[in-house]
């Protein structure tokens, strides 16, 4: 039973969904890429050496004064390429697809950054309306040694333990 409880706790604490759920840090908002408007979010925030999750919204250009994006563009071929600005590592790339995304109106890609430093992220879009390109710089920090979520979970368990201890003691008082 204890093992089952531990397993349930571990599953509940799984941070895996964090990358697929929620936007992340906005890197580009409604930037023009040929005939498209592109918005890009990355997680974790800040970007660190190791896994990087990239979410993209590809939309038709917006109209009106508010400059809001138009309807989403689906089924385009989208490539995400990371190049180190100081050299030393080869460029890494991955396709971003609607299928990989929980929200099928978005495109998502998973990459692994081998080193901290400044990187250039290039987005290539090829769709029915034509092709376009956009890029932005990404500052990548060294990998984190401790996990905040795990520490938070530990603090919660300790608090719950104290509460239980206090509750059991209060009966004897």
């Amino acid at each position, binding site marked *: *039973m204890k093992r089952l409880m531990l397993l*349930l706790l571990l*599953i*509940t*604490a*799984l*941070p895996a*969904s*964090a*990358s*697929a*759920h*929620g*936007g*992340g*840090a*906005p890197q580009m*908002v*409604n930037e023009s890429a040929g005939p498209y*408007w592109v*918005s890009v*979010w990355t*997680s974790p*925030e800040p970007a660190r050496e190791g896994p990087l999750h990239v979410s993209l*919204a*590809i*939309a*038709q250009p*917006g109209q*009106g004064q*508010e400059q*809001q*994006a*138009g*309807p*989403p*563009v*689906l*089924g385009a071929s989208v490539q995400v390429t990371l190049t180190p600005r100081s050299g030393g590592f080869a460029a890494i790339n991955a396709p971003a697809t*609607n299928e990989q995304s*929980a*929200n*099928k*109106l978005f495109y998502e890609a998973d990459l692994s950054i081998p080193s901290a430093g400044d990187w250039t992220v290039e987005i290539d879009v090829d769709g029915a309306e034509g092709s376009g390109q956009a890029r932005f710089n990404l500052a990548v920090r060294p990998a984190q040694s401790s996990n905040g*979520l795990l520490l938070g979970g530990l603090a919660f368990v300790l608090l719950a333990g104290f509460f*239980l201890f*206090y*509750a*059991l003691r*209060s*009966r004897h*008082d």
Partner: protein
Amino acid sequence: MDPVIRAILLSWEWRIEVLIPLVVAGVVFFVGWRRLRLKGRRPHGLANGWRLVSYWVGLLLIGLALLSPIDVLAGQLFFMHMIQHLLLVMIVPPLLMLANPMPFLLWGLPDAVRHKAGAALSNVLHRKSSTRKTLRTITSPGVAWIIFVFVIIGWHDPNLYNAALRNAVVHDLEHLTFFGAAMLYWWHVVGAGPRIHKRFSRTAQVMYVIAAIPPNMLTGIAIAFAGQVIYSHYLSMPRLWGIDAIDDQTLAGVIMWVPGSMMYIVVVLILTARWLEGEERKPPLPASKWATDERMAAPGLKRR
């Protein structure tokens, strides 16, 4: 089919950390409900069929709110986010509480675990326990109302709301606090177990529900008539069906204001109907109690 509609209908996110607790809760409740039903002397006692339906529908709606396209689109359309919050705050908690889940969940556990859990609960909720006193204070109706209103209004602060849309952990925290505060609030309205507070009178119950309408209504009105986009996150989203960010925000505010407030009014009507039903069930007073000369006199007249 329109590709956008197709993409939306396919946008389900099977989050294991949501699915497993829902399935476990549903199964444990069913096992406990079945055990208590078999034990019950009356066929329609505590383990009523409607309690099981109410609990399961509540769990299904949590799944719908957190796993279906409603959740996926919540980051893209503000009004969809509002529908998700209404489900988690105003529909699911009363359904779960109406089922009075505590005894069923306890009886759904294996015997050894049930005995331990029961002992731990009785330690905590024992009449003389200081923990019970603390719990009574921090979960009193007044505190529950303040927490509920504070959580609902607080999360609509632009910085907090944008942070929730940007960070998945903050977003989950938002949903957990919404749900937790709502469960606490509806616990007092429904009167589900464990009962550690004095029972509400019908009038107090109705007033308690009515008191939640103005904060909800005013927040909805403020959002609906803001005039400019409050949550900048939605400006970066591709727009669906020609609904721009400001129309989306107006729609979200109206949903919070009108259907959101209507939920409370429906509950007030149900409580009032139950109250009147209770009055009708009371046996009539014997004639000796009211058919006296004094009581038969017209109001304001004194019989000499």
